[in-house]
């Protein structure tokens, strides 16, 4: 499979994403410069974390105007899978590809630590290979990760099973203490109505090798690879 990893000025998890896709999973991954305007030949798009444009104005607010984002809109409209991680999630929300917004952590401080995630729905390209009883132990690292949307949007997300991951305790309970940033309903990640665009604040690319303390994040990338494989088989048939 061939992954595009977008590179904005200020992206800083771009090389980590390439590392995991290439050296851990054995697929092809290339950095795509934000001034490019084509994603032809790619099977999936990763929008990596970092501080695109220094987070000036508002996280993700300037990056969404980069030329490559037109191509991402088109790629997503054609059903191509797009995954935004951390700042990537913020950019996808700003670009209108995902509903809601990510605002300042309730603690008003940046938080970097491992958290536990419960997967709320398995019916997406990003979650299908995650065992149903498995909690994912993955790090977060953000100052603006509090997921916020109006009541109607939240109700719709829940009704459509668009909430993918929630912050939980090590026992799998949704509690206030397990929520590191004050997100509504402990939401850590969501997908769009078409289920091919997703975003999450935690960093699965930092939890894909046991050497780094956890390889739970790998399940998210493996789900995506599995979904792409199934799609190409269906197409071939």
């Amino acid at each position: 499979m061939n992954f595009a990893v977008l590179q904005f000025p200020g992206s800083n998890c771009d090389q980590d994403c390439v590392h995991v896709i290439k050296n851990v999973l054995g697929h092809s991954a290339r950095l795509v410069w934000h001034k490019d305007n084509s994603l032809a030949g790619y099977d999936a798009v990763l929008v990596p974390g970092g501080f695109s444009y220094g987070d000036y104005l508002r996280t993700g607010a300037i990056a969404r105007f980069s030329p490559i984002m037109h191509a991402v809109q088109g790629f997503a409209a054609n059903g191509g899978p797009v995954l935004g991680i951390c700042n990537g999630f913020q950019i996808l929300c700003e670009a209108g590809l995902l509903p809601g917004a990510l605002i300042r952590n309730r603690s008003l401080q940046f938080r970097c630590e491992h958290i536990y995630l419960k997967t709320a729905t398995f019916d997406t390209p990003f979650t299908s290979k995650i065992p149903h009883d498995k909690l994912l132990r993955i790090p977060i690292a953000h100052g603006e990760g509090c997921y916020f949307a109006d009541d109607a949007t939240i109700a719709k997300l829940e009704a459509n099973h668009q909430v993918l991951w929630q912050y939980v305790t090590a026992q799998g309970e949704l509690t206030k203490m397990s929520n590191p940033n004050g997100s509504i309903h402990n939401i850590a990640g969501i997908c769009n109505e078409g289920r091919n665009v997703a975003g999450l604040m935690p960093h699965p690319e930092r939890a894909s090798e046991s050497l780094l303390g956890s390889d739970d994040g790998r399940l998210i990338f493996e789900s995506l690879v599995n979904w792409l494989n199934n799609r190409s088989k269906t197409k071939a048939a």
Partner: protein
Amino acid sequence: MSDPAITPELVKKHNLTPEEYVKIKAILGREPSYTELGIFSVMWSEHCSYKNTRPLLKTFPTKSPKILVGAGEENAGIIDIGDGLAIAFKIESHNHPSAVEPFQGATTGVGGIVRDIFTMGARPICSVNSLRFGPITKGSGEDDPQVLSNNRRLFSGVVAGIAHYGNCFGIPTVAGEVYFDKSYEGNPLVNAFCLGVLRHEQIARGAAKGVGNPVFYVGPATGRDGLAGAAFASQDLTDESAQQQRGAVQVGDPFMEKLVCEACLELLATDAVAGIQDMGAAGLTCSTCETAARAGTGIEIELDKVPQRAPNMTPYEIMLSESQERMLIIVEKGREDEVKRIFDKWDLPWSHIGEVTGDGRMIVRCHGKVVADLPAAILANEAPVYHRESREPAYLKKVREFTLAGVPDSKDPVAELKTLLAEPTIASKNWVYRQYDHMVRDGSVVCPGSDAAVLRIKADSLPVSKDGKELDPKIEKFIAITVDCNAGYVYLDPYEGGKIAVAEAARNLACSGATPLGTTDNLNFANPFNPELFWQLKESVRGVAEACRFFNAPVTGGNCSLYNQSPNGPIDPTPTIGMVGQIEKPEHITTQWFKNAGDVVILLGDAVNSKDPLQGLGGSAFLEKFHGLKTGTPPVCDMEKEKTLHETLHGLIISGLIKSAHDCSEGGLAVTLAESCISHQDARETPSLIGAQIDLSGIVDARLDALLFGETQGRIVISVAPDDVVKVTERAKIMGVPATKIGSVGGADLTIKTSKSSYAWPVADLHRPWWNSIAEAMK
């Protein structure tokens, strides 16, 4: 606007002595211009010239077969780590700016050291820092609520600044130390360390090579911020500093630094660069004369071509500005277009400002008129050197006379241990490091919270190579990093304290499975004109130099920060040691916390040094906290024993016999044991706690406080599987290292039995104060 006339007052305002001014006139054969005076003042500041410390720095060991670029040669030292790879690292202070403007002072401290690393052609892969503030809680030497609140303001501002810069740039802040002591009130210490990786052939030089080569300025425009910061760093802080010197503090932009770093590494992968240097302290001045001096060439620049942020800047201001994130690049003639292409790609300003010349002069023009014409090499290398007077401080007599007679023994060890664990200097620093992104770049194997951070260097950590070939992805290297200095010991015995700082760093590396590669030192001291304070500097450098030699950890570079004193008095002498070691295989990586119930706990080293009349309590955290005494001869560092201890532990680790290893430092054995039980954090709000049953009843000749809380040097607590106990103790015996089986891991309590009584603590009760204490103080 015409330049002011040069008067004795103006010379004095520039921190130059009348003798220094005479020397300047002798060098030039005439009176300097105003701009030239400014240039001399920053180049001859302590920060740039080391004029008061150079003779001492020469005593450091600086050579080993692995050192590729040594101390003082370039912006940072470089050490070989095998397979054609190398690391560049250095520590640098930003104390004075942080005292005046904590957030920006800290951000630009990080920014400056990160630039020093990528200037060498290395990709920065981690950042570390060593911080010191006045007390933040009552009962630790300061009770005035206003002063405490100001200390907290400085602490939170510095931490936020480090977080802001490192997180945005995308460099993990993986380790550090934070001390709180009254001596740092009004003069906090902010020492920032950065480490980068590169291949041997990628080492870039800060030399203006090739007469006729164009000189480029890249990065953001020059403003009036940070005017003469290097000179400001080389004076005492006064009550007026905050008001008067705010303009000397630079403003950091980590986003800009990220772009400049990526663009420079991309450019260095071409052959277009003849030399490169960052504009750090003394900005355009230092970078132009130093690059010319290194290459034995001259340099000529036109200030009209320097991008400027403010209108009507004078040559003096442009030359002395310390605006951040700027670089000077000497380009191979004919390759200018590559520079333009890459910097345009990253939307970064660039400007062709001058040429390399053959006459050895640094010539600065403004509107075509010469405003400075100086001999570059003399300016860069021949600052005056002073051998300052030194005299043993009077207070040391009292320190040496101190005995334990009249100091009652421990009354309530159960409460005392909990109190010590909550003491901000000893307590968990999670309030700090959870604000730092410590995992970006996929290399943090051991995160903050163990004796040393461990980093994985992988093939794709390296800068892009010139041939575009990628390294074999299977190549991985493991590096351990620690920063250490117990300045209280240094105050009480500068020589021994200097040795201990190095020994502790080496011990922390040993506990993580590493052997030392090299050291970077940050000498934070007070005013060198005071003979007693200069004696502290001289003696501690003697200790540091001797210990670096002994532990095979040569100094590859560092920084001196003098004049660290506020109206409250001088700081404790603080020679911060940053040490880097290598771990051969991932399976040798060792952490400090106990792992499995049933494992046996062994103490390596003597429980109490029987030759020490103070039994390890001199200068201890215990004595200070419970008796209000910051005195007594600190514990002795027996380097021979210490080194054998490290080598023995290393041998046991590579034989796969060690489950955990944790060194004994502040708070002594009881704190070490408690930390081994409580310091592993699985995830947010999910500590991984385990108890231990310890029996010290065999030790009968020590005071109870000395046994539990004494700080005898050369001790490590390890845990091993029951089947390996005999192998471990036998091997230690052969090496001559005392190895005492003191208990086993398991249960929900830490219990310690002594010859007098037994004490028990539910581990959750130890974890709570230790983990939360700083957060509660900062609410």
